[in-house]
Protein backbone atom coordinates (compact mmCIF):
# COMPACT_ATOMS: atom_id res chain seq x y z
CA UNK A 1 0.00 0.00 0.00
CA UNK A 2 2.91 2.28 0.66
CA UNK A 3 4.09 1.55 -2.84
CA UNK A 4 0.61 2.19 -4.18
CA UNK A 5 0.61 5.71 -2.78
CA UNK A 6 3.95 6.38 -4.39
CA UNK A 7 2.80 5.11 -7.78
CA UNK A 8 -0.37 7.13 -7.96
CA UNK A 9 1.25 10.29 -6.67
CA UNK A 10 3.56 9.96 -9.66
CA UNK A 11 0.58 10.16 -11.98
CA UNK A 12 -0.95 13.55 -11.46
CA UNK A 13 -3.89 14.07 -13.78
CA UNK A 14 -2.18 16.91 -15.59
CA UNK A 15 0.55 14.52 -16.70
CA UNK A 16 -1.81 12.06 -18.27
CA UNK A 17 -2.96 13.99 -21.30
CA UNK A 18 -1.21 17.30 -21.84
CA UNK A 19 -3.16 19.65 -24.04
CA UNK A 20 -0.90 19.44 -27.09
CA UNK A 21 -1.13 15.68 -26.97
CA UNK A 22 -4.90 15.97 -26.78
CA UNK A 23 -4.92 18.10 -29.88
CA UNK A 24 -2.43 16.14 -31.92
CA UNK A 25 -4.20 12.88 -31.10
CA UNK A 26 -7.48 14.47 -31.99
CA UNK A 27 -6.21 15.62 -35.38
CA UNK A 28 -4.85 12.17 -35.98
CA UNK A 29 -8.20 10.61 -35.15
CA UNK A 30 -10.06 13.01 -37.39
CA UNK A 31 -7.77 12.54 -40.37
CA UNK A 32 -7.37 8.79 -40.14
CA UNK A 33 -10.70 7.07 -40.08
CA UNK A 34 -8.88 3.76 -40.13
CA UNK A 35 -7.15 4.64 -36.91
CA UNK A 36 -10.44 5.37 -35.24
CA UNK A 37 -11.96 2.16 -36.57
CA UNK A 38 -8.96 0.23 -35.35
CA UNK A 39 -9.31 1.75 -31.91
CA UNK A 40 -12.96 0.81 -31.72
CA UNK A 41 -12.25 -2.71 -32.96
CA UNK A 42 -9.49 -3.00 -30.38
CA UNK A 43 -11.89 -2.01 -27.63
CA UNK A 44 -14.35 -4.66 -28.78
CA UNK A 45 -11.84 -7.45 -29.25
CA UNK A 46 -9.76 -7.02 -26.11
CA UNK A 47 -12.04 -5.86 -23.32
CA UNK A 48 -10.03 -4.60 -20.39
CA UNK A 49 -6.73 -4.60 -22.22
CA UNK A 50 -5.28 -1.12 -22.59
CA UNK A 51 -8.69 0.47 -22.66
CA UNK A 52 -7.20 3.91 -22.31
CA UNK A 53 -5.41 3.51 -25.62
CA UNK A 54 -8.58 2.42 -27.38
CA UNK A 55 -10.81 5.09 -25.93
CA UNK A 56 -11.28 8.24 -28.01
CA UNK A 57 -10.13 11.64 -26.78
CA UNK A 58 -12.46 14.44 -25.81
CA UNK A 59 -12.02 18.15 -26.50
CA UNK A 60 -9.71 19.67 -23.93
CA UNK A 61 -11.38 20.13 -20.58
CA UNK A 62 -10.48 22.93 -18.21
CA UNK A 63 -9.27 21.99 -14.75
CA UNK A 64 -12.00 22.60 -12.27
CA UNK A 65 -11.66 24.01 -8.78
CA UNK A 66 -13.55 20.90 -7.71
CA UNK A 67 -10.61 18.66 -7.02
CA UNK A 68 -8.92 16.81 -4.19
CA UNK A 69 -5.62 17.03 -2.33
CA UNK A 70 -3.76 14.25 -4.06
CA UNK A 71 -1.44 13.69 -1.13
CA UNK A 72 -4.54 12.52 0.77
CA UNK A 73 -6.65 11.23 -2.12
CA UNK A 74 -4.36 9.89 -4.85
CA UNK A 75 -6.07 9.14 -8.16
CA UNK A 76 -7.05 5.60 -9.00
CA UNK A 77 -5.73 4.26 -12.28
CA UNK A 78 -7.75 4.09 -15.49
CA UNK A 79 -7.61 0.28 -15.30
CA UNK A 80 -8.98 0.23 -11.75
CA UNK A 81 -11.81 2.62 -12.53
CA UNK A 82 -12.79 0.74 -15.68
CA UNK A 83 -12.48 -2.88 -14.55
CA UNK A 84 -14.29 -2.86 -11.20
CA UNK A 85 -17.83 -1.63 -11.72
CA UNK A 86 -21.33 -2.04 -10.43
CA UNK A 87 -23.40 -1.92 -13.59
CA UNK A 88 -25.96 -4.65 -13.01
CA UNK A 89 -27.43 -4.46 -16.52
CA UNK A 90 -24.23 -6.29 -17.55
CA UNK A 91 -24.20 -8.64 -14.55
CA UNK A 92 -23.84 -8.50 -10.79
CA UNK A 93 -20.13 -9.34 -10.61
CA UNK A 94 -17.64 -6.49 -10.59
CA UNK A 95 -15.87 -7.73 -13.72
CA UNK A 96 -19.06 -8.33 -15.73
CA UNK A 97 -19.27 -4.73 -17.02
CA UNK A 98 -15.71 -4.63 -18.40
CA UNK A 99 -16.34 -8.02 -19.99
CA UNK A 100 -19.70 -7.33 -21.61
CA UNK A 101 -20.10 -3.56 -22.02
CA UNK A 102 -18.00 -3.54 -25.19
CA UNK A 103 -21.00 -4.69 -27.20
CA UNK A 104 -23.11 -1.71 -26.13
CA UNK A 105 -24.01 0.70 -28.96
CA UNK A 106 -23.79 4.27 -27.69
CA UNK A 107 -24.15 6.04 -31.02
CA UNK A 108 -26.67 7.31 -31.88
CA UNK A 109 -28.03 8.19 -28.44
CA UNK A 110 -31.23 9.98 -27.52
CA UNK A 111 -32.28 11.26 -24.14
CA UNK A 112 -35.97 11.81 -23.65
CA UNK A 113 -36.62 14.86 -21.50
CA UNK A 114 -40.16 15.17 -20.22
CA UNK A 115 -42.34 16.05 -17.28
CA UNK A 116 -42.39 19.53 -15.80
CA UNK A 117 -40.13 21.29 -18.32
CA UNK A 118 -40.76 24.04 -20.83
CA UNK A 119 -38.70 22.36 -23.53
CA UNK A 120 -39.48 18.63 -23.50
CA UNK A 121 -38.26 16.44 -26.34
CA UNK A 122 -35.70 13.97 -27.58
CA UNK A 123 -32.19 15.32 -27.29
CA UNK A 124 -28.83 14.10 -28.53
CA UNK A 125 -25.90 14.08 -26.08
CA UNK A 126 -24.38 17.15 -27.77
CA UNK A 127 -27.69 19.02 -27.41
CA UNK A 128 -27.59 18.59 -23.64
CA UNK A 129 -23.86 18.89 -22.96
CA UNK A 130 -21.77 21.73 -24.30
CA UNK A 131 -18.54 19.99 -25.32
CA UNK A 132 -16.69 23.31 -25.45
CA UNK A 133 -17.27 23.85 -21.74
CA UNK A 134 -16.09 20.52 -20.39
CA UNK A 135 -14.46 20.48 -17.00
CA UNK A 136 -12.19 17.93 -15.39
CA UNK A 137 -13.26 17.32 -11.82
CA UNK A 138 -11.54 14.96 -9.46
CA UNK A 139 -14.11 13.43 -7.14
CA UNK A 140 -14.08 10.90 -4.36
CA UNK A 141 -16.44 8.05 -5.20
CA UNK A 142 -17.83 6.05 -2.26
CA UNK A 143 -19.76 2.85 -2.86
CA UNK A 144 -22.37 1.72 -0.34
CA UNK A 145 -20.36 -1.54 -0.21
CA UNK A 146 -17.56 0.33 1.62
CA UNK A 147 -14.97 0.63 -1.13
CA UNK A 148 -13.97 3.98 -2.57
CA UNK A 149 -11.92 5.44 -5.42
CA UNK A 150 -10.73 8.84 -6.63
CA UNK A 151 -11.80 9.56 -10.20
CA UNK A 152 -10.99 12.29 -12.73
CA UNK A 153 -14.34 12.77 -14.44
CA UNK A 154 -14.99 14.99 -17.45
CA UNK A 155 -18.34 16.71 -17.68
CA UNK A 156 -20.47 19.74 -16.96
CA UNK A 157 -22.67 20.64 -14.02
CA UNK A 158 -26.05 18.95 -14.26
CA UNK A 159 -27.56 22.38 -13.57
CA UNK A 160 -26.21 23.58 -16.95
CA UNK A 161 -27.97 20.69 -18.65
CA UNK A 162 -31.22 21.27 -16.81
CA UNK A 163 -31.18 25.00 -17.59
CA UNK A 164 -31.28 24.12 -21.30
CA UNK A 165 -34.58 22.31 -20.93
CA UNK A 166 -36.05 24.88 -18.53
CA UNK A 167 -37.59 23.14 -15.53
CA UNK A 168 -40.93 24.60 -14.43
CA UNK A 169 -41.20 26.11 -10.92
CA UNK A 170 -43.47 23.24 -9.91
CA UNK A 171 -40.68 20.69 -10.57
CA UNK A 172 -39.42 19.34 -7.24
CA UNK A 173 -37.48 16.26 -8.32
CA UNK A 174 -35.47 14.87 -11.23
CA UNK A 175 -35.79 11.23 -12.23
CA UNK A 176 -33.13 9.44 -14.28
CA UNK A 177 -33.82 6.29 -16.29
CA UNK A 178 -31.02 3.99 -17.41
CA UNK A 179 -30.90 2.13 -20.73
CA UNK A 180 -32.55 -1.28 -21.06
CA UNK A 181 -31.37 -3.16 -24.15
CA UNK A 182 -31.71 -6.92 -23.70
CA UNK A 183 -29.63 -7.97 -26.72
CA UNK A 184 -26.63 -5.99 -25.47
CA UNK A 185 -27.06 -6.35 -21.71
CA UNK A 186 -26.78 -9.93 -20.38
CA UNK A 187 -27.30 -8.90 -16.74
CA UNK A 188 -30.92 -7.91 -17.35
CA UNK A 189 -31.82 -11.61 -17.16
CA UNK A 190 -29.75 -12.51 -14.12
CA UNK A 191 -28.97 -9.65 -11.77
CA UNK A 192 -32.26 -9.83 -9.89
CA UNK A 193 -33.36 -6.19 -10.12
CA UNK A 194 -36.40 -4.61 -11.73
CA UNK A 195 -35.63 -2.69 -14.92
CA UNK A 196 -35.21 -0.02 -15.98
CA UNK A 197 -32.84 1.22 -13.29
CA UNK A 198 -34.34 4.36 -11.82
CA UNK A 199 -32.71 7.03 -9.72
CA UNK A 200 -33.70 10.49 -8.61
CA UNK A 201 -32.61 13.67 -6.90
CA UNK A 202 -34.35 16.50 -5.17
CA UNK A 203 -34.28 19.64 -7.33
CA UNK A 204 -31.82 21.48 -5.04
CA UNK A 205 -29.51 18.43 -5.12
CA UNK A 206 -29.74 18.26 -8.91
CA UNK A 207 -29.01 21.98 -9.28
CA UNK A 208 -26.09 21.89 -6.82
CA UNK A 209 -22.85 22.85 -8.60
CA UNK A 210 -21.14 19.63 -7.41
CA UNK A 211 -23.65 17.42 -9.23
CA UNK A 212 -21.91 16.45 -12.43
CA UNK A 213 -23.19 15.25 -15.80
CA UNK A 214 -20.34 13.01 -16.90
CA UNK A 215 -19.24 12.30 -20.48
CA UNK A 216 -15.60 11.41 -19.95
CA UNK A 217 -12.90 9.91 -17.80
CA UNK A 218 -9.15 10.61 -17.75
CA UNK A 219 -9.53 12.96 -20.72
CA UNK A 220 -11.17 10.27 -22.84
CA UNK A 221 -14.71 9.50 -23.91
CA UNK A 222 -16.46 7.72 -21.04
CA UNK A 223 -15.99 3.94 -21.33
CA UNK A 224 -19.22 1.94 -21.67
CA UNK A 225 -18.77 0.09 -18.37
CA UNK A 226 -18.67 3.45 -16.57
CA UNK A 227 -22.00 4.54 -18.04
CA UNK A 228 -21.37 5.88 -21.54
CA UNK A 229 -22.34 8.08 -23.13
CA UNK A 230 -23.95 10.08 -20.36
CA UNK A 231 -24.15 9.55 -16.61
CA UNK A 232 -24.45 11.60 -13.45
CA UNK A 233 -22.09 11.62 -10.50
CA UNK A 234 -23.13 12.95 -7.12
CA UNK A 235 -19.95 12.79 -5.02
CA UNK A 236 -21.54 13.16 -1.57
CA UNK A 237 -23.90 10.22 -2.11
CA UNK A 238 -23.31 6.47 -2.33
CA UNK A 239 -22.47 5.35 -5.84
CA UNK A 240 -25.83 3.75 -6.63
CA UNK A 241 -27.40 7.23 -6.77
CA UNK A 242 -25.27 8.07 -9.80
CA UNK A 243 -27.21 6.57 -12.70
CA UNK A 244 -25.40 5.41 -15.83
CA UNK A 245 -26.19 5.48 -19.57
CA UNK A 246 -29.13 7.81 -19.08
CA UNK A 247 -31.97 7.63 -21.62
CA UNK A 248 -34.60 9.68 -19.88
CA UNK A 249 -34.66 12.72 -17.61
CA UNK A 250 -38.05 13.44 -16.13
CA UNK A 251 -38.92 16.40 -13.93
CA UNK A 252 -41.66 15.79 -11.45
CA UNK A 253 -43.32 17.10 -8.32
CA UNK A 254 -43.32 13.67 -6.61
CA UNK A 255 -40.32 11.90 -5.11
CA UNK A 256 -39.24 9.35 -7.77
CA UNK A 257 -38.82 5.67 -6.99
CA UNK A 258 -35.21 4.57 -7.03
CA UNK A 259 -34.39 0.96 -7.88
CA UNK A 260 -32.40 -0.16 -4.83
CA UNK A 261 -34.80 1.48 -2.38
CA UNK A 262 -37.64 -0.43 -4.06
CA UNK A 263 -35.66 -3.70 -4.08
CA UNK A 264 -34.46 -3.57 -0.43
CA UNK A 265 -36.09 -0.62 1.36
CA UNK A 266 -34.51 -1.29 4.76
CA UNK A 267 -31.00 -1.17 3.28
CA UNK A 268 -31.16 1.60 0.68
CA UNK A 269 -33.03 4.88 0.86
CA UNK A 270 -33.77 7.77 -1.48
CA UNK A 271 -31.14 10.13 -0.07
CA UNK A 272 -28.20 7.73 0.33
CA UNK A 273 -25.91 10.44 1.63
CA UNK A 274 -22.52 9.09 2.69
CA UNK A 275 -22.71 8.99 6.48
CA UNK A 276 -20.39 7.16 8.90
CA UNK A 277 -23.02 7.13 11.66
CA UNK A 278 -25.86 5.53 9.71
CA UNK A 279 -25.06 1.86 9.20
CA UNK A 280 -26.17 -0.35 6.39
CA UNK A 281 -28.10 -3.16 8.13
CA UNK A 282 -25.47 -5.67 7.03
CA UNK A 283 -22.33 -3.63 7.72
CA UNK A 284 -21.05 -0.61 9.55
CA UNK A 285 -20.39 2.45 7.37
CA UNK A 286 -17.91 3.95 9.85
CA UNK A 287 -14.84 2.96 7.82
CA UNK A 288 -14.04 2.36 4.15
CA UNK A 289 -11.25 0.91 2.05
CA UNK A 290 -9.63 3.03 -0.64
CA UNK A 291 -8.91 0.63 -3.45
CA UNK A 292 -6.61 -1.12 -4.04
CA UNK A 293 -5.88 -1.15 -0.32
CA UNK A 294 -7.41 -4.23 1.30
CA UNK A 295 -7.64 -2.53 4.69
CA UNK A 296 -10.93 -1.08 5.86
CA UNK A 297 -9.00 1.58 7.73
CA UNK A 298 -10.15 4.92 6.32
CA UNK A 299 -12.70 6.78 8.40
CA UNK A 300 -15.80 7.48 6.31
CA UNK A 301 -16.36 11.22 5.99
CA UNK A 302 -19.79 12.74 6.46
CA UNK A 303 -21.16 13.57 2.99
CA UNK A 304 -18.00 11.90 1.67
CA UNK A 305 -16.00 14.98 2.70
CA UNK A 306 -18.27 17.45 0.84
CA UNK A 307 -20.14 18.53 3.97
CA UNK A 308 -18.99 22.18 3.70
CA UNK A 309 -20.80 22.43 0.41
CA UNK A 310 -23.86 20.27 0.84
CA UNK A 311 -24.72 19.87 4.54
CA UNK A 312 -27.00 22.90 4.38
CA UNK A 313 -29.24 21.07 1.90
CA UNK A 314 -30.26 18.75 4.73
CA UNK A 315 -30.50 21.23 7.60
CA UNK A 316 -33.10 20.11 10.12
CA UNK A 317 -33.56 16.67 8.52
CA UNK A 318 -33.15 13.48 10.54
CA UNK A 319 -30.47 11.72 8.48
CA UNK A 320 -31.22 8.42 10.24
CA UNK A 321 -34.77 8.54 9.00
CA UNK A 322 -33.94 9.93 5.55
CA UNK A 323 -31.03 7.56 4.82
Amino acid at each position, binding site marked *: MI*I*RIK*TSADVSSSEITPEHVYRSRREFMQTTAAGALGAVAGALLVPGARLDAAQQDLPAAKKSAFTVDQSVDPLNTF*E*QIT*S*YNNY*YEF*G*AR*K*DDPVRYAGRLTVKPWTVKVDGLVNKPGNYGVEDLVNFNQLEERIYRHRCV*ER*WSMVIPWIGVSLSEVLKKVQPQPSAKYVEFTTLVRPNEMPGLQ*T*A*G*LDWPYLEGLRMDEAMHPLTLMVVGLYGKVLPNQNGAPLRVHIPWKYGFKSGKSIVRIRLTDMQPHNTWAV*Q*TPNEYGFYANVNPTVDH*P*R*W*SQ*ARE*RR*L*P*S*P*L*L*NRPTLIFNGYGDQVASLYAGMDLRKFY
Partner: protein
Amino acid sequence: MATRLRERLAALVAAAVGWRFFKPAVFVACLSPAIWLGYRAWRFFLGGDLTALGVDPSATLEHETGKTALIVLLITLSVTPLRRLLGVNRLQIVRRMLGVWSFTYAALHVSIYLVVDQLCYSTQTCDLSGIWQDVLKRRFIFAGATAFVILSSLAITSTTGWQRRLRKNWQRLHRLVYVAAVAAIVHFVWIQKSDIREPLRWGFFLAVLLALRVVFAIQKRRRARVRLPVTA
Protein backbone atom coordinates in the same frame (compact mmCIF):
# COMPACT_ATOMS: atom_id res chain seq x y z
CA MET B 1 -27.25 -49.73 -18.66
CA ALA B 2 -27.28 -47.61 -15.52
CA THR B 3 -25.87 -50.55 -13.55
CA ARG B 4 -23.03 -51.00 -16.04
CA LEU B 5 -22.20 -47.32 -15.89
CA ARG B 6 -22.15 -47.49 -12.13
CA GLU B 7 -19.91 -50.56 -12.19
CA ARG B 8 -17.47 -48.86 -14.52
CA LEU B 9 -17.45 -45.71 -12.42
CA ALA B 10 -17.00 -47.80 -9.29
CA ALA B 11 -14.05 -49.62 -10.90
CA LEU B 12 -12.52 -46.28 -11.87
CA VAL B 13 -12.92 -44.78 -8.41
CA ALA B 14 -11.67 -48.01 -6.82
CA ALA B 15 -8.57 -47.88 -9.03
CA ALA B 16 -7.93 -44.22 -8.09
CA VAL B 17 -8.45 -44.88 -4.41
CA GLY B 18 -6.23 -47.96 -4.62
CA TRP B 19 -3.34 -45.89 -5.98
CA ARG B 20 -0.64 -45.63 -3.35
CA PHE B 21 -0.40 -41.85 -3.78
CA PHE B 22 -4.17 -41.28 -3.63
CA LYS B 23 -4.12 -39.63 -0.22
CA PRO B 24 -1.11 -37.40 -0.95
CA ALA B 25 -2.75 -36.44 -4.26
CA VAL B 26 -5.92 -35.32 -2.49
CA PHE B 27 -3.76 -33.40 -0.01
CA VAL B 28 -1.96 -31.55 -2.81
CA ALA B 29 -5.27 -30.83 -4.57
CA CYS B 30 -6.62 -29.28 -1.37
CA LEU B 31 -3.46 -27.27 -0.83
CA SER B 32 -3.27 -25.85 -4.36
CA PRO B 33 -5.92 -23.06 -4.00
CA ALA B 34 -4.02 -21.78 -0.95
CA ILE B 35 -0.72 -21.84 -2.85
CA TRP B 36 -2.20 -19.95 -5.80
CA LEU B 37 -3.83 -17.32 -3.57
CA GLY B 38 -0.71 -17.09 -1.40
CA TYR B 39 1.44 -16.55 -4.48
CA ARG B 40 -0.78 -13.66 -5.65
CA ALA B 41 -0.89 -12.19 -2.13
CA TRP B 42 2.91 -12.37 -1.97
CA ARG B 43 3.15 -10.50 -5.28
CA PHE B 44 0.67 -7.89 -4.06
CA PHE B 45 2.04 -7.26 -0.57
CA LEU B 46 5.76 -7.81 -1.12
CA GLY B 47 6.30 -7.66 -4.88
CA GLY B 48 4.47 -4.37 -5.41
CA ASP B 49 2.20 -5.83 -8.11
CA LEU B 50 -1.00 -4.00 -7.23
CA THR B 51 -3.05 -5.91 -9.80
CA ALA B 52 -2.16 -9.38 -8.51
CA LEU B 53 -5.28 -9.69 -6.34
CA GLY B 54 -7.65 -7.79 -8.63
CA VAL B 55 -8.89 -4.25 -8.05
CA ASP B 56 -10.38 -5.09 -4.64
CA PRO B 57 -7.85 -7.35 -2.87
CA SER B 58 -9.82 -7.85 0.34
CA ALA B 59 -12.85 -9.01 -1.65
CA THR B 60 -10.66 -11.44 -3.61
CA LEU B 61 -9.06 -12.85 -0.45
CA GLU B 62 -12.34 -13.18 1.44
CA HIS B 63 -14.39 -14.57 -1.43
CA GLU B 64 -11.83 -17.12 -2.61
CA THR B 65 -11.08 -18.55 0.85
CA GLY B 66 -14.77 -18.61 1.78
CA LYS B 67 -15.82 -20.30 -1.41
CA THR B 68 -13.02 -22.86 -1.20
CA ALA B 69 -14.03 -23.71 2.39
CA LEU B 70 -17.60 -24.32 1.23
CA ILE B 71 -16.63 -26.39 -1.81
CA VAL B 72 -14.24 -28.59 0.20
CA LEU B 73 -16.96 -29.03 2.84
CA LEU B 74 -19.42 -30.17 0.16
CA ILE B 75 -16.80 -32.58 -1.22
CA THR B 76 -16.32 -33.91 2.33
CA LEU B 77 -20.04 -34.51 2.57
CA SER B 78 -19.98 -36.31 -0.80
CA VAL B 79 -17.61 -39.02 0.46
CA THR B 80 -20.20 -41.12 2.29
CA PRO B 81 -22.89 -41.02 -0.45
CA LEU B 82 -20.28 -41.83 -3.11
CA ARG B 83 -18.88 -44.66 -1.04
CA ARG B 84 -22.35 -46.16 -0.62
CA LEU B 85 -23.52 -45.63 -4.19
CA LEU B 86 -20.33 -47.05 -5.70
CA GLY B 87 -19.45 -49.52 -2.99
CA VAL B 88 -15.91 -48.19 -2.70
CA ASN B 89 -15.34 -48.26 1.03
CA ARG B 90 -11.74 -47.13 0.86
CA LEU B 91 -12.91 -43.63 -0.14
CA GLN B 92 -13.36 -43.20 3.59
CA ILE B 93 -9.60 -42.72 4.05
CA VAL B 94 -9.73 -39.09 2.78
CA ARG B 95 -12.86 -37.93 4.61
CA ARG B 96 -11.19 -36.64 7.77
CA MET B 97 -8.45 -34.90 5.79
CA LEU B 98 -11.04 -33.19 3.57
CA GLY B 99 -12.96 -32.00 6.62
CA VAL B 100 -9.85 -30.55 8.21
CA TRP B 101 -8.99 -28.80 4.93
CA SER B 102 -12.44 -27.22 4.84
CA PHE B 103 -11.84 -25.93 8.38
CA THR B 104 -8.40 -24.63 7.32
CA TYR B 105 -9.91 -22.51 4.54
CA ALA B 106 -12.68 -21.32 6.88
CA ALA B 107 -10.00 -20.31 9.41
CA LEU B 108 -8.12 -18.42 6.67
CA HIS B 109 -11.39 -16.74 5.66
CA VAL B 110 -12.11 -15.62 9.23
CA SER B 111 -8.50 -14.49 9.80
CA ILE B 112 -8.59 -12.35 6.66
CA TYR B 113 -11.87 -10.78 7.81
CA LEU B 114 -10.31 -10.04 11.21
CA VAL B 115 -7.19 -8.49 9.70
CA VAL B 116 -8.54 -6.46 6.77
CA ASP B 117 -12.06 -5.56 7.96
CA GLN B 118 -11.55 -5.35 11.73
CA LEU B 119 -7.86 -4.32 11.58
CA CYS B 120 -6.70 -7.05 13.98
CA TYR B 121 -3.09 -6.92 12.76
CA SER B 122 -2.20 -5.17 16.01
CA THR B 123 -3.87 -4.94 19.40
CA GLN B 124 -4.19 -1.15 19.18
CA THR B 125 -6.11 -1.13 15.91
CA CYS B 126 -8.24 -4.25 16.42
CA ASP B 127 -11.92 -3.27 16.54
CA LEU B 128 -13.18 -5.77 19.12
CA SER B 129 -16.53 -4.05 19.60
CA GLY B 130 -16.91 -3.99 15.81
CA ILE B 131 -16.49 -7.77 15.70
CA TRP B 132 -19.00 -8.26 18.50
CA GLN B 133 -21.47 -5.89 16.81
CA ASP B 134 -21.05 -7.76 13.53
CA VAL B 135 -21.74 -11.16 15.10
CA LEU B 136 -24.78 -9.96 17.02
CA LYS B 137 -26.29 -7.43 14.64
CA ARG B 138 -25.54 -8.80 11.18
CA ARG B 139 -27.36 -12.02 10.49
CA PHE B 140 -25.05 -13.12 7.66
CA ILE B 141 -22.05 -12.84 9.99
CA PHE B 142 -23.96 -14.71 12.70
CA ALA B 143 -24.63 -17.54 10.23
CA GLY B 144 -20.97 -17.60 9.16
CA ALA B 145 -19.76 -17.52 12.76
CA THR B 146 -22.06 -20.44 13.59
CA ALA B 147 -20.59 -22.49 10.76
CA PHE B 148 -17.06 -21.58 11.85
CA VAL B 149 -17.57 -22.45 15.53
CA ILE B 150 -18.95 -25.85 14.52
CA LEU B 151 -16.16 -26.56 12.03
CA SER B 152 -13.57 -25.57 14.66
CA SER B 153 -14.93 -27.95 17.27
CA LEU B 154 -15.16 -30.73 14.71
CA ALA B 155 -11.57 -30.11 13.58
CA ILE B 156 -10.31 -30.20 17.18
CA THR B 157 -12.15 -33.45 17.91
CA SER B 158 -11.24 -35.03 14.59
CA THR B 159 -8.32 -37.03 16.02
CA THR B 160 -8.54 -40.73 16.80
CA GLY B 161 -7.87 -39.92 20.46
CA TRP B 162 -10.95 -37.71 20.69
CA GLN B 163 -12.95 -40.25 18.74
CA ARG B 164 -12.15 -42.87 21.43
CA ARG B 165 -12.70 -40.49 24.30
CA LEU B 166 -16.13 -39.34 23.12
CA ARG B 167 -17.30 -42.80 22.05
CA LYS B 168 -20.96 -42.62 20.94
CA ASN B 169 -21.05 -38.86 21.48
CA TRP B 170 -18.41 -38.38 18.82
CA GLN B 171 -20.81 -39.29 16.04
CA ARG B 172 -23.54 -37.17 17.60
CA LEU B 173 -21.21 -34.20 17.77
CA HIS B 174 -19.97 -34.67 14.23
CA ARG B 175 -23.51 -34.73 12.84
CA LEU B 176 -23.36 -30.97 13.48
CA VAL B 177 -21.45 -30.79 10.18
CA TYR B 178 -24.86 -30.70 8.48
CA VAL B 179 -25.80 -27.62 10.50
CA ALA B 180 -22.46 -26.03 9.58
CA ALA B 181 -23.03 -26.70 5.87
CA VAL B 182 -26.53 -25.22 5.94
CA ALA B 183 -25.25 -22.19 7.92
CA ALA B 184 -22.47 -21.68 5.37
CA ILE B 185 -24.97 -21.65 2.49
CA VAL B 186 -27.24 -19.24 4.40
CA HIS B 187 -24.20 -17.00 5.08
CA PHE B 188 -23.44 -17.01 1.34
CA VAL B 189 -27.05 -16.21 0.37
CA TRP B 190 -27.39 -13.40 2.92
CA ILE B 191 -24.29 -11.52 1.80
CA GLN B 192 -25.61 -11.19 -1.78
CA LYS B 193 -27.20 -7.94 -2.85
CA SER B 194 -29.62 -9.23 -5.47
CA ASP B 195 -28.24 -12.09 -7.57
CA ILE B 196 -28.44 -15.25 -5.42
CA ARG B 197 -28.02 -17.81 -8.18
CA GLU B 198 -24.54 -18.92 -7.19
CA PRO B 199 -25.22 -19.69 -3.50
CA LEU B 200 -28.48 -21.38 -4.53
CA ARG B 201 -26.60 -23.69 -6.89
CA TRP B 202 -24.32 -24.82 -4.04
CA GLY B 203 -27.39 -25.02 -1.79
CA PHE B 204 -29.04 -27.36 -4.30
CA PHE B 205 -25.93 -29.56 -4.30
CA LEU B 206 -26.05 -29.71 -0.49
CA ALA B 207 -29.77 -30.54 -0.59
CA VAL B 208 -29.03 -33.52 -2.88
CA LEU B 209 -26.32 -34.78 -0.50
CA LEU B 210 -28.65 -34.47 2.49
CA ALA B 211 -31.54 -36.11 0.62
CA LEU B 212 -29.31 -39.09 -0.22
CA ARG B 213 -28.60 -39.54 3.47
CA VAL B 214 -32.31 -39.57 4.21
CA VAL B 215 -32.76 -42.29 1.53
CA PHE B 216 -29.91 -44.33 3.03
CA ALA B 217 -31.42 -44.02 6.52
CA ILE B 218 -34.82 -45.23 5.28
CA GLN B 219 -33.21 -48.18 3.44
CA LYS B 220 -31.27 -49.12 6.54
CA ARG B 221 -34.38 -49.08 8.72
CA ARG B 222 -36.30 -51.19 6.19
CA ARG B 223 -33.53 -53.75 6.02
CA ALA B 224 -33.47 -53.93 9.79
CA ARG B 225 -37.23 -54.56 9.86
CA VAL B 226 -37.04 -57.32 7.24
CA ARG B 227 -34.30 -59.08 9.18
CA LEU B 228 -36.18 -58.96 12.43
CA PRO B 229 -38.29 -62.17 12.04
CA VAL B 230 -35.25 -64.08 10.77
CA THR B 231 -33.17 -63.31 13.83
CA ALA B 232 -36.07 -63.84 16.24
